[in-house]
Structure formats: C-alpha cells, structure tokens
C-alpha cells in the first residue's frame, strides 16, 4: 500500500460471499449440490443495473482485481492498472464485479472446501469444472446481484476465454466483450506445457493422489516446478533477457547446482512463493479447464459457426511478444468473428513483456481499452435515454 491512497485507486475493498443452495449441473456430468462464490465489487450499480462490468480472472487469479484489502498490503489487486476512477474500466461509470471461480482456492467452493457428502474436504474428488461451468455460476451470481445484462464482460488469458463463452452461452446478457491475450483453443504446445506442470505436481511424493491434506503434507516441490514452467511461458525471451540476461548471483561460477544465474533465483523465488500460496488441486483443475476449452468443437471445428449467434461487439487484443497465446490466435478469433459478420475490432499491442503484458501498464493498450470501454459507456447511456 502506498503512503497515501492514489485518487485513481478504488481504495480499500472487502470481498463478499454469496451462497447458492441450488445444485449446479456441470459439463463433466456431475453435480455440485450447492456452492459459494467469493467476489469483489468496485463502483456503484446504477438504478437500472445497466452499468455492470464483469471481470474474469486467469489461471492463478482471483476475485481481488483492484484496490487494497488492507493498509499494509504491498500490492493492489491484479488488474489495478486498468480498474479504478479514470482508468480504462472507470469505476466512476461502471460497477465492476470480479468473482473467484469455482474450484478456486481463494474462498469460492473448491478442492479445499468441505464435501457435504463426506464431511471432509473435497480434495482431488472435486469435479473438474470447465469454462462453461464458470460462466453458468457467474450468471447465477449476476442474477443474485440483479444484473440482467452486463455493459461489458472483460478478461485476459483464461479470463478472455470466459468472456468468449459468455458471448456464446448468454448472447443477450452482455452488451460488449473484451477478449485480451486469449485464444479460441489451446494448441498442442500449450497443452504440453500444462501437462508437464501437472506431472510435476502429481509426481511429487507429497501429493498423495491429491489427498495431501489428509496426509498432513503439501506438494510444494511439484507446485513450485509447475509454477516455474508456467512462469517461463508468461514472459518473453526478450523480457527475460533484459531483466536477467546472464547475470550471476555469485561473484563467479561455482561449478555446482546451487543458484548461480539471476534467472534461476527469480524462478525459484516465484515458484516457492506460489507453492505455499496456491492449492495444487486447484492448479490441476484450472489447467484442465484451459485444455478443454474449445467452443468450435461443437460445430465441427468451425469457430465462425460457434460465434454466429453472439450479439455483442468484441474487442480482441493481443501482444506482439506473447508466445503463450500468440497474436495469431487472437487474429484467428477476430477473423472468425469477421467471417460470421459479427462486430469486432482487433488490436495487436507492441509490448516486450510476453503474455504477462495483459496485466501491465502500456500506453497503447490503455488507449485502445479505454476507447472501447468509453464507447460501451456512451452506448449504455444512449440506450437508457
């Protein structure tokens, strides 16, 4: 937390919880008897509930997208650069909702929650949830908040896939869609990286097939490795090169396997921090949700057909050095929308920061995003008039 709260911050925020007693049928065929969703909101919902913006989070994200929980917090929420008064998602205009997805480990029902059937935590028995399941549960939360139609639904990476799914599943419930640094489906290479990450976790002797809590252990080594692998795919060769190069932690090479290069130290640090902060079962199921996402598969692989019944304007954004979900994947999506004659704009933002760029400040990204959201706002006020 900075010494004084900046005027562009949403300030101190408190998560809320909504409980759903109705069972939720999942794509995998199983059913969740009931569930809780933890979420945050910023800004004020207007009288006709037309100014809501849903922000969808990525793989290791959560509901804390902006502002601070505590005056002692070192860092604000994960998308604070783009949510707040005067920012791209302007909280003076919009009521922003961000939900921790089902299966998560930040408060919403997930592997760490109690399974009512056993009285124990779900652990690995928690059903695999998909992007579609998340969208259904988010829609239930929207009902609860009295939001029939979002002014916009936005998200980056896995969050962008949820936006896409919303536009397909609930075409009448969003007025605008911003899909950032995402892809209409994972490539073999993407799935391969996920599989290595999963194997790292599952082969950790402390994993115990996911029942680590019952064994009083934590698969920290596996989760650390998984995060290290993931982290490499979030950065670009260029950004790693400029940030770490071949810099050494030590004065000279020590001909051993302890940390020598700065980049090793960085990855280990990131991995260690993540291994105690995140739940391994959640990480596993989130990577599966990524792998399974492929809305075109229901239409013989024809993405245009999958998107033919969407009704909102789309903004598709990619970043030049993103090789996890490369610009070509976003272009594929934009082209499919264009073929379907759906309203779509596409921008490829110049950034050296790889996939992570979607979280970072960038003048052009901000200009594009702000222009889109401002137009969304004016459309909203025009409709109301």
């Amino acid at each position, binding site marked *: 937390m900075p010494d004084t709260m900046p005027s562009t911050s949403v300030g101190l925020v408190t998560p809320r919880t909504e409980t759903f007693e109705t069972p939720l049928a999942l794509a995998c065929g199983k059913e969740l008897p009931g569930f809780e969703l933890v979420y945050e909101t910023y800004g004020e919902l207007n009288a006709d509930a037309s100014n809501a913006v849903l922000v969808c989070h990525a793989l290791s994200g959560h509901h804390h997208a902006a502002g601070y929980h505590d005056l002692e917090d070192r860092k604000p929420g994960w998308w604070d650069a783009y949510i707040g008064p005067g920012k791209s998602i302007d909280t003076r205009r919009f009521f922003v909702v961000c939900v921790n997805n089902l299966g998560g480990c930040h408060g919403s029902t997930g592997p760490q929650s109690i399974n009512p059937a056993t009285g124990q935590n779900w652990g690995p028995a928690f059903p695999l949830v998909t992007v579609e399941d998340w969208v259904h549960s988010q829609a239930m939360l929207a009902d609860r908040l009295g939001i029939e139609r979002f002014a916009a639904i936005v998200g980056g990476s896995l969050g962008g896939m949820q936006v896409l799914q919303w536009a397909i599943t609930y075409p009448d419930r969003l007025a605008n869609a911003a899909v950032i640094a995402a892809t209409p489906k994972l490539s073999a290479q993407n799935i391969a990286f996920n599989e290595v990450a999963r194997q790292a976790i599952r082969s950790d002797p402390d994993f115990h097939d996911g029942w680590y809590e019952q064994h009083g252990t934590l698969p920290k080594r596996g989760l650390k490795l998984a995060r290290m692998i993931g982290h490499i795919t979030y950065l670009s060769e260029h950004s790693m090169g400029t940030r770490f190069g071949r810099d050494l932690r030590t004065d000279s090479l020590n001909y051993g396997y302890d940390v020598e290069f700065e980049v090793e130290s960085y990855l280990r640090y990131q991995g260690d921090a993540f291994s105690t902060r995140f739940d391994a079962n959640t990480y596993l199921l989130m990577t599966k949700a990524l792998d399974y996402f492929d809305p075109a598969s229901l239409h013989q692989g024809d993405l245009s057909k999958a998107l033919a019944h969407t009704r909102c*304007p789309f903004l598709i954004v990619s970043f030049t050095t993103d090789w996890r979900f490369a610009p070509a994947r976003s272009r594929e999506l934009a082209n499919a929308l*264009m073929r379907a004659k759906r309203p779509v*704009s*596409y*921008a490829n933002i110049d950034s050296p920061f790889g996939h992570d760029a979607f979280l970072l400040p960038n003048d*052009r990204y901000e*200009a594009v995003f702000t222009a889109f959201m401002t*137009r969304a706002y004016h459309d909203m006020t025009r409709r109301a008039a």
Partner: protein
Amino acid sequence: MRADFAQIMRWVPEQAHVLDLGCGDGMLLDTLSRDKHITGYGLEIDPEGITACLARGVDVMEQDLDGGLDNIGDDAFDVVIMTQALQVLRRPDLMLDEMLRVARECIIAFPNFAYWRHRLYLGLNGRMPVSRALPHEWYDTPNIHLSTFKDFRRLCDQQGHRIIDQAVGNGHHQTHWSAERWPNLFGQTAIFRIQR
C-alpha cells in the same frame, strides 16, 4: 466532407457489407453506417487511427495491407473501398485482384500524379511535386507507387477488370467542369468504381 468521400457515398448501395482498406480514423465507415446503414470493417495499421475507430464505434482490424487479404473469403463483402492507400502499397496490382476477389465491386481513390499542378511543378522546378495532395518530399514519402488516371485505367484493362464509373475529386471543392472533361489533367484525386 472530403470531396472523394462524397463521391464514394453515392456509389455505395444501401445496407451493403463494406470493407474499407486503410480506413484511417473510420470517418468514411462511420458516415456510411449512418447515412447508408452499411455494415462492415476497416483495416488499418496506424495505432492512432485504430483508437479513433474504436472511439467512434467503427469496427477496425489491425492488419498490414501488404500482407494481402488471405484472412478474408471470396465474396465476403459487397464493396471494398480503398482511399489514399493504393499508392503506399508494395504491389497495387496484386491488391486490386485481391479486392475484386473478396467483393464483386471496389471503389478506389488515389492522388492523380498527372494533375496539372504536379505537371507544372515538375516541369518548372525540375523537382518531384509537393502539393496539398502529395505533401511529402521524395525521400520520406509513403507514396511508393504514384500513378495517373490513365495509368490506372491501363492496369484495370490489363487485369481484365471493368471500370463502371469514374470521377475526379478536386481538393475540397466541387468538381470543376474542366476536370470532368480532362480528368487526367485537372483531376486531383482519381476515383474509380470497378467490377470484375
């Protein structure tokens, strides 16, 4: 409104599906959607143009025209428009074929290099013309394929495309009678309506 835009507006049918190559700030598409109820997209590479399009709600795709239109299917549009972009392309001839692949009809506007002021400038000064329509010096100009009204007619003939209408723009003014009679001499902007 720009003189060439006014002419283009007359040629675009009501409710057409339109592709605007090098759409700039989206002004033409915006006007067409309001006055002619068209749908469609602009392709643009300039970041400021793209942001301006987004701000006015014109659908724009960031795309380099020199890479072709291979992301667009045959006959995907009713009309393809290109204003003041032909002369900056690496291969205007290939683009012309591409335009008439993705639509049956295209409208192209470009600066007429044979405009009398350009001829006079070159003739008197012995230097590459610099004018309101061609504001750059020869070394920093994006216009790498300047041509004349006549040159373009020849290209269309060679490639087997039919010019069904033509007009000249004369700066911001109404077209002068002299330009109607001698377009290659008095037309500052050449505007063609072409079908395959």
